[in-house]
């Protein structure tokens, strides 16, 4: 008992220590890491920072970039990739945030640790060192060939901004690309302050990377910084993209001649001595019309997706056991606002148990278009065996290119569901009798009631217990009766023993008269009776069937001397002989002798015999 408790304790301690030891790994079931595509970057180049978070949870936190990073770099979000995988029913997900960093100044910088908080714990990445070198500006590139509505620029200005859109009419949820350009033919003293235009009514997505190139306009060379943003109209109507504002500081050239440029060529001195001139640059507001989606031809299952998409569906295995999960993966990929695609409605699947659908998406912004794919993963557990079909899955969207609704459908998926391995097992081990155990369950109910009985416990029944005394009682009575009987016969023997001599003397006295009458026959008969009577009484034997040997044995047993026994036998012989063959010449004297001898030997016996 104690040994067992001890063993259990040890086991408990072991388990506890394993749990404690594995605590850190348990709590760090999410992890964070960061990386950059290059550690050395030129002033006009850019670098890509990727922050990955992964863990065995379905919802991961979003990282916060430290504030100090904004001092040294322009930071643009460049989309994220979310990935959810379900392996053996365990959900693990990872999410990668992409940022484009454009350095603001030359020097050595450190991207500080990026911190996320999850369930009260803090996870951080290691810091990354970045060196920003003073690079040569890239060769002038051509204005992107896309058709643009160019506003009238002001060639007489040495710095100006424009905002343009690629189209002024778009359907709800169709991408409109807004391009902001900053032209400058003058050097800036510090970083410009940008106030983005008011984009009420749109859903906005940054489109990195920022582009820098030279352009010649009316003989003047400008450095152009181009930032693109994708806009999606949320509801139909006419909207205005507000004016963008850029605040720049340029040197006041009017004071230039005071200084020797060679001596004061250093930027520091220029900054220090030359005058500052702050300018506010504004772009024109743009009217944009968001068109409603046509009412005619709208499919029933349409849920607002706009763009150009394709759909595919697959299962992770085409053959599985009953009650074992399979994963149905439906992927919608293409061009459009992937994020806003609502969750998929699966057809009714009566033969399956269906679990919550998890979705993950992957957005890419290459070529300034929002593209990507959204993956819907659903765990299905087949309830029955046989060939099951997942029917076609419908997905409808509006195609702005074709200006009509389209409905895509996946081909039906056929599945082979085999009986569960585990439950088949017993039949495989005992195949001889041909019995196949399919499913173990409780046995069926009973349909008839037994005879109505009163609930009782026999061992508590007093009458039943009382009956058990009867045999014992009977036993006792029998024993008593037998004892009494034995005692009685014992008593008889006792009486005979003690009265034997008295009776013998009485008999002898009666026989004596026969001597006087000289009647030998009567005398010997009387003597025989007297002796046999006496011996019978004394030895508790019947006096009528006494034999010589019986007498001798009995006397011997009672420690009577051999001599006495011999004498007794002789007298008895004589008496018996004389009694049954009487001769005429037996005289009185002889009878008297026998009488005397008999009296003497019986007297001796009487003294020696004990009970």
């Amino acid at each position: 008992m104690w040994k067992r408790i001890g063993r259990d304790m040890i086991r408990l301690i072991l388990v506890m220590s394993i749990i404690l030891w594995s605590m850190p790994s348990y709590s760090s079931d999410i992890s964070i890491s960061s990386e950059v595509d290059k550690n050395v970057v030129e002033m006009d180049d850019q670098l890509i920072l990727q922050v990955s978070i992964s863990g065995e949870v379905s919802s991961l936190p979003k990282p916060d970039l430290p504030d100090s990073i904004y001092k040294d770099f322009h930071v643009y979000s460049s989309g994220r990739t979310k990935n959810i995988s379900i392996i053996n029913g365990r959900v693990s997900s990872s999410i990668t945030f992409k940022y484009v960093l454009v350095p603001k100044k030359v020097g050595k910088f450190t991207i500080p640790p990026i911190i996320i908080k999850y369930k009260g714990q803090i996870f951080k990445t290691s810091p990354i060192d970045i060196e920003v070198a003073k690079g040569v500006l890239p060769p002038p590139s051509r204005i992107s060939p896309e058709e643009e509505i160019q506003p009238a620029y002001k060639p007489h200005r040495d710095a100006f901004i424009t905002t343009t859109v690629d189209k002024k009419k778009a359907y709800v949820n169709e991408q409109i690309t807004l391009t902001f350009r900053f032209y400058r033919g003058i050097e800036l003293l510090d970083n410009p302050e940008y106030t983005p235009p008011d984009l009420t009514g749109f859903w906005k997505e940054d489109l990195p990377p920022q582009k820098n190139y030279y352009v010649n306009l009316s003989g003047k060379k400008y450095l152009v910084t181009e930032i693109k943003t994708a806009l999606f109209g949320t509801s139909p109507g006419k909207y205005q993209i507000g004016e963008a504002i850029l605040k720049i500081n340029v040197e006041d050239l009017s004071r230039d001649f005071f200084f020797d440029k060679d001596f004061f060529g250093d930027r520091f001195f220029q900054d220090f001595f030359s005058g500052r001139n702050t300018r506010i640059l504004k772009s024109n507001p743009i009217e944009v019309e968001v068109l409603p989606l046509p009412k005619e031809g709208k499919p029933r299952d349409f849920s607002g997706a706009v763009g150009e998409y394709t759909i595919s569906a697959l299962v992770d295995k085409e053959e599985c056991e009953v009650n074992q999960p399979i994963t149905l993966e439906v992927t919608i990929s293409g061009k459009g606002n992937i994020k806003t695609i609502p969750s998929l409605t699966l057809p009714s699947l009566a033969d399956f148990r269906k679990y919550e659908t998890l979705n993950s998406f992957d957005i890419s912004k290459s070529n300034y278009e929002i593209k990507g794919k959204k993956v819907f993963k659903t765990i299905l557990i087949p309830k029955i065996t046989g060939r099951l079909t997942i029917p076609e899955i419908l997905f409808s969207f509006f195609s702005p290119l074709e200006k009509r609704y389209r409905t895509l459908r996946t081909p039906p998926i056929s599945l082979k569901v085999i009986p569960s391995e585990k439950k088949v097992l017993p039949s495989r081990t005992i195949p001889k009798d041909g019995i196949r155990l399919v499913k173990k369950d409780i046995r069926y109910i009973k349909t008839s009631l037994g005879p109505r009985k009163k609930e009782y416990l026999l061992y508590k029944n007093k009458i039943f217990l009382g009956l058990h005394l009867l045999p014992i009682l009977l036993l006792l009575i029998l024993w008593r009766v037998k004892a009494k009987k034995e005692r009685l016969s014992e008593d008889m023997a006792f009486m005979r023993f003690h009265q034997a001599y008295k009776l013998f003397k009485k008999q002898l006295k009666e026989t004596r008269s026969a001597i006087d009458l000289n009647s030998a026959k009567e005398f010997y008969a009387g003597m025989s009776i007297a002796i046999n009577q006496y011996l019978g009484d004394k030895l508790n034997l019947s006096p009528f069937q006494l034999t010589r040997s019986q007498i001798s044995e009995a006397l011997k047993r009672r420690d009577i001397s051999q001599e006495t026994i011999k004498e007794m036998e002789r007298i008895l012989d004589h008496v018996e002989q004389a009694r049954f063959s009487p001769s005429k010449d037996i005289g009185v004297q002889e009878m008297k002798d026998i009488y005397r001898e008999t009296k003497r030997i019986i007297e001796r016996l009487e003294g020696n015999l004990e009970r």
Partner: protein
Amino acid sequence: MNKLLLTIFISISSLVYGEGNEKEIFSKSNDFYKLGMYRQAIDGYENLLSQGIKDKAIFYNLGNAYYKDAKIGEARLNYERALRLSPRDEDIRFNLEYVKSIINEEKGGFATQLFAFFTLNELTIITSVFYLLFIISIFPIFFKKRYLILNLSIGIILILLGIWLGLRIYYEEGIKLAIVINPSSQVRNGPSEDYSVGFTLPEGKSVVILSKKGDWVEIGIKEKGLKGWIKKDEIEKI
């Protein structure tokens, strides 16, 4: 005289009515069971039991209905009760072992099965018969005849039967066994919510009642050497 007749009449008629009603409720409950309406079936069987009708079929069917209603504790409780009434019933034993296997309780060995092979009343009668035989075997002594080996063997059997009966009475009446009917019950180190939780018990586990204090019962688990306090309504006596 008239009064007596009336009493007899009433008692007979109530008996007849009771009998009919009982069979009706039983078959109706069975119908509910067949239809998968386990809650209604449970109500019916419980109603019969509350009338004081103790039948193995009622306990067994009630256990089945509870099992189908996913109440393992109640199911086991009723199978145990049914088995006490009819220890050699294959179906009852099978379902009880099935339910026990769900909560990973070890199957009783041959000795355990043998121990409970007879009902208490059957064992009482068997012991009684051997007692009688023993006494009869003594009688020849009065006629100066002894059958020593016969006497001795019957005597030994009688002693063994007596021990068996005594143990059975102790286990069924002396020790108070109970079944946990609450899913995942917490067993505390003292008879109040203020005490820490010592261990938890799955639904359907059998425990021994040691003592009572207010709404709390002290229980023990023999094979593990565990003791603790549990709320009265989380267990039920077999």
